[in-house]
């Protein structure tokens, strides 16, 4: 479904990603883990088109994403839940979800999707008329995920959904993500600093370190020892 081939991104002269390759197949749950500054967010932004790419290719369902303008990529079926949530603070909760349904695919079945989103996160239904900026961090994360779902994506990309949340709230969010994968069969690409939770939920993982993939494989093969070695250098 998604193939990233030898992707390189640099800010100024500073390399953020060096020849990164990864693949996500239909129905998979892939986690990309790694420490701060490893290039995880940059990887997502490159896929979504908000950072300039220096080299390599990104294919989504056979189409070359790099020839598509950034605003076009959501219409292809990619939903990006950005780091730090980035809800539309001055729009109501419901309006945020409506904006998520901007692509044609989501617009047509919005009423139906809305029921699913409210079933997954009942608090959003209660707060539908409230400004999104007045929600708590956890609720904003739920809204950011709901907003992404509203587009009826084929690939859901989640950038650090647990960031800044209490452990209890982070668990709630992870449960919801797991449910989206298992019950709705959504293909998910997750970036996380919380390695244990991320790898626990996913089917395959990649370890990203200073812009390079240093380890990849099924979760069973990414044994904790090898991971600890790659991740912490011990």
């Amino acid at each position, binding site marked *: 479904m998604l193939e990233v081939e030898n992707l390189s991104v640099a800010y100024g002269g500073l390399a953020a990603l060096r020849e990164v390759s990864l693949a996500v197949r239909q129905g998979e749950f892939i986690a990309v883990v790694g420490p701060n500054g490893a290039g995880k967010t940059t990887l997502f932004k490159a896929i979504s088109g908000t950072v300039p790419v220096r080299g390599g290719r990104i294919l989504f369902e056979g189409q070359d994403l790099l020839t598509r*303008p950034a*605003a076009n990529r959501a219409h292809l079926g990619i939903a990006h839940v950005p780091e730090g949530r980035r*809800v*539309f603070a*001055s729009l109501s909760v419901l*309006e945020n979800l409506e904006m998520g349904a901007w692509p044609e695919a989501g617009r047509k079945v919005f009423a139906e999707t809305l029921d699913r989103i409210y079933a997954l996160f009942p608090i959003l239904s209660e707060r539908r008329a409230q400004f999104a900026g*007045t929600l708590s961090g956890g609720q904003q994360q739920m809204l950011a995920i709901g907003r992404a779902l509203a587009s009826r994506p084929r690939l859901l990309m989640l950038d650090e959904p647990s960031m800044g949340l209490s452990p209890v709230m982070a668990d709630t969010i992870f449960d919801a993500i797991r449910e989206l994968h298992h019950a709705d069969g959504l293909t998910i690409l997750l970036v996380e600093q919380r390695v244990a939770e991320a790898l626990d939920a996913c089917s395959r993982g990649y370890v990203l370190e200073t812009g390079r993939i240093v380890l990849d494989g099924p979760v069973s093969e990414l044994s904790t020892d090898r991971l600890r070695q790659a991740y912490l250098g011990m």
Partner: protein
Amino acid sequence: MNAAAFVEQAAQALTAGIMVGCVYGLLCVGLAFIFGIMRVINFAQGDFMMVGMYLAFYLATHVLGTTLLGDATPFVAAALTVPVLFIVGGGLHRLLIARTTGLRGVGLSAEGHQAQLILTLGIALVLQNGALILLGTSPHTVLTTLSSSAWELPLLYDDFSAVFINQARAIAAVLSVGVAFGLFLLVARTRLGKSLRAAADNPEAATYMGIDVDRAHRIAFAIGTAVAGLAGGIIVAYYPVQPFVGVDFIIIMYAGVVLGGMGSISGAFWGGMVIGLVQQLSTLVMPLQLQNAAIFAAFVLILLFRPQGLFGRNVERA
């Protein structure tokens, strides 16, 4: 001056204030699209209005003629400025403004505001001096029978006091309210309006939703320009146009938008209304020359007690 005469004057000033306020309200709504919603500093807004005034003037006097349409001529001319200014605004945005707004603005210093300020100041100077070279300094206005006729509204406490309502101004006020309300609904209710707010609120996230942020900015800028043109076309039925007329109005527009609360269309309208009222009512107690001073005294006082503006809302979690 006796009490009855003062009441008559006050009623007259209040009526004038409401009528002027409606038109200021529309002007502020136009700027609200550009400055209030998209947060683009536009110094040329008053000059877009000036262009609309000249365009409506020449359309009314040289193209349409008053024979066929009669008293409706200036308002038809004003309506015709809308598509022209919409295209002008959209074109200016595509060619120049877009280099300083949206996702590209994020990378610039002060989010592109400094670049916008200089750029639009440049556009303002070109428009002002271009008009000066091409059209000269003599003021023009579209005079119809409406401009010089008034409705007389008797005041009930005696037999001779009355408020006079200039017909051209009254129609201008009603049209302004109608258009402003339509634009309010556009922003509040329609998908397009919501996408404009989303694109302004968080351009990066809007892009992830599939919203073309550049296009949203262009539409907002074009609407703002067209509204300035329309308001100019309406005003020229009673206010003379000359190349620097925009300077008189740009301050009023910014004061109105800030007074009403950034980002709020209804707030911008009421901000304009407050300014119209203050301007007219101040003439009761102050010399005419001080009416703009009165506006800024009121402006400072209101912001002192409500820094977010009359209708500004706090949307961030405390």
